[in-house]
């Protein structure tokens, strides 16, 4: 499988890391707990994007839409209905998955960049609706003061809730990637024509992948509501989509934990460099350029390469992208 850092050897590492995260609130001040929550939520979003981007080879340029839809679904259910809280949270991934299906049905037949362009347009359309529909979504003001239950909204308890859901989602995504479905998805990325020739309905497979990715993005969106207690149209904005795309590339988009690492790097940098200069994106841009030049597989991809001699360092596209 691609860059197998998560083999039997690295499992203890992952567990160790998780234990560290569980004990974080005992060691770190409140601000760092909050920061860790932000990283987890954004990292989950970036990982869900990577499911279709790195593993599926689909240029899903506007993935944040599903995140926003998830967040808005939870927010609207909590403010405008009297349904139980768990329904509000459970319906976020469902709503996002539904929109994933809708956009997937329209886009999945197109190839690479055409797919990306159409996906941006459809996503921006949804953003515009949310941005303008004052009566329903609160327009550009968003929705504030969402009644999240006390037990979930305090810094530490929200951290634990977010950690639990994120871990669960990552585990599910990892299982999906290792499943036959995930295998075919990677085959589709490596060579769509060959994939079709071995009997795979590639359009259908792509749509299912988009639905799954949207589902997890929606879950991340509902976690955002717990964290912030408010939603706003920026959650569906194209800039956020770009940001998570950069996280995937920076962390390593052919690795499972790359996007999470990317989220960690970028959010920490924004927080700390943001203290000194408002032009922190300048540093980000520079880092991105250096990454592309020197670590084309991202930070995690580079680490993988150091530890496994198996990973090839040659560009592998050659054989699969030559025109017939």
């Amino acid at each position, binding site marked *: 499988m691609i860059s197998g850092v998560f083999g039997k050897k690295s499992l203890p590492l992952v567990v160790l890391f998780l234990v560290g995260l569980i004990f974080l609130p005992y060691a770190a001040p409140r601000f760092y707990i909050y920061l860790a929550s932000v990283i987890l939520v954004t990292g989950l979003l970036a990982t869900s994007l990577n499911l279709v981007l790195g593993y599926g080879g689909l240029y899903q340029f506007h993935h944040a839409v599903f995140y926003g839809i998830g967040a808005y679904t939870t927010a609207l259910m909590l403010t405008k209905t009297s349904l139980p809280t768990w329904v509000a949270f459970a319906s976020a991934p469902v709503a996002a998955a539904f929109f994933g299906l809708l956009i997937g049905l329209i886009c999945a037949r197109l190839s690479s960049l055409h797919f990306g362009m159409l996906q941006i347009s459809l996503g921006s359309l949804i953003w515009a609706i949310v941005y303008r529909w004052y009566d329903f979504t609160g327009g550009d003001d968003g929705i504030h003061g969402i009644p999240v239950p006390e037990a979930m909204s305090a810094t530490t308890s929200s951290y634990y809730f977010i950690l639990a859901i994120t871990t669960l989602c990552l585990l599910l995504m990892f299982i999906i990637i290792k499943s036959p479905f995930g*295998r075919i998805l990677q085959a589709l990325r490596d060579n769509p024509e060959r994939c*079709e020739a*071995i009997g795979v309905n590639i359009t259908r*497979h792509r749509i299912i992948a988009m639905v799954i990715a949207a589902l997890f993005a929606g879950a991340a969106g509902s976690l955002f509501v717990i964290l912030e207690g408010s939603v706003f149209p920026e959650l569906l904005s194209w800039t956020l989509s770009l940001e998570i795309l950069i996280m995937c590339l920076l962390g390593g988009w052919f690795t499972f934990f790359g996007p999470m690492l990317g989220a960690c790097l970028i959010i920490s940098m924004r927080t700390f460099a943001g203290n000194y200069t408002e032009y922190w994106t300048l540093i980000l841009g520079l880092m991105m350029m250096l990454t592309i030049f020197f670590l084309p597989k991202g930070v995690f991809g580079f680490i993988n390469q150091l530890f496994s001699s198996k990973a090839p360092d040659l560009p592998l596209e050659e054989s699969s992208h030559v025109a017939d």
Partner: protein
Amino acid sequence: MLQIRSLRKSFDGFLAVKEANLSVNPGEVVAVIGPNGAGKTTLFNLVSGQIRPDAGSIRFKGEDICGLRPHQLCRKGMSRSFQIVKIFSRMSVFENVQTAVISRMKKTSNLFIPAHNIAVKETEAILEAMGLIDKRDSICGLLSHGDQKVLEMAISLGSDPQLLILDEPTAGMSGEETARAIDLMKHLSRQRGLTILFCEHDVELVFSFADRIMVMQQGSTITQGTPDQVRNDPQVKKAYLGSHD
């Protein structure tokens, strides 16, 4: 098993395939030969559903298959390899073949069981037969060209086809590799009873191996027959083999 009648396909006014006729009986090894640009690859792409014909008919096991997508044809028992290697370059050799087997077993939508221990025996049997077993875990993007071509064949076998279509299976191979590939094809035909349709540049090689040969020139079928018939066909002599005899 496969009947092609008056097949026609044009690209932007250029008639790549004008009047192609071909029949393949079960268990046969049929070769398509013709000079460069005769329309061999286009013909194969038409048969395997990569492109749609403008006119004519293609029947596979008695059923009209015009307009079916490649994945549907694969499900009907037709599998192909490509002239330019198309493999899953980031995966290992084993995973490449296993992926085809997984697809054939219709497990592609299974989300929750690990893929790596599905159909291990079957995949290994294919690799064994194709002589790739000792390269089982190499990343296939890094294999030699000859091995990649053989891997192409192995992936096609993963679909357990009745009809195997090979588009220039020995293109770009060294003499030694070519001999090996031909041996493999003979093995597949005799041991497994596979029907094979292939096209090839090397005329001598084709005559030594194929049961029947179809000759194409400028998009049209000139003749189809046994090697002896083709060798003695005046039209073929004139058009294609003139320099050889």
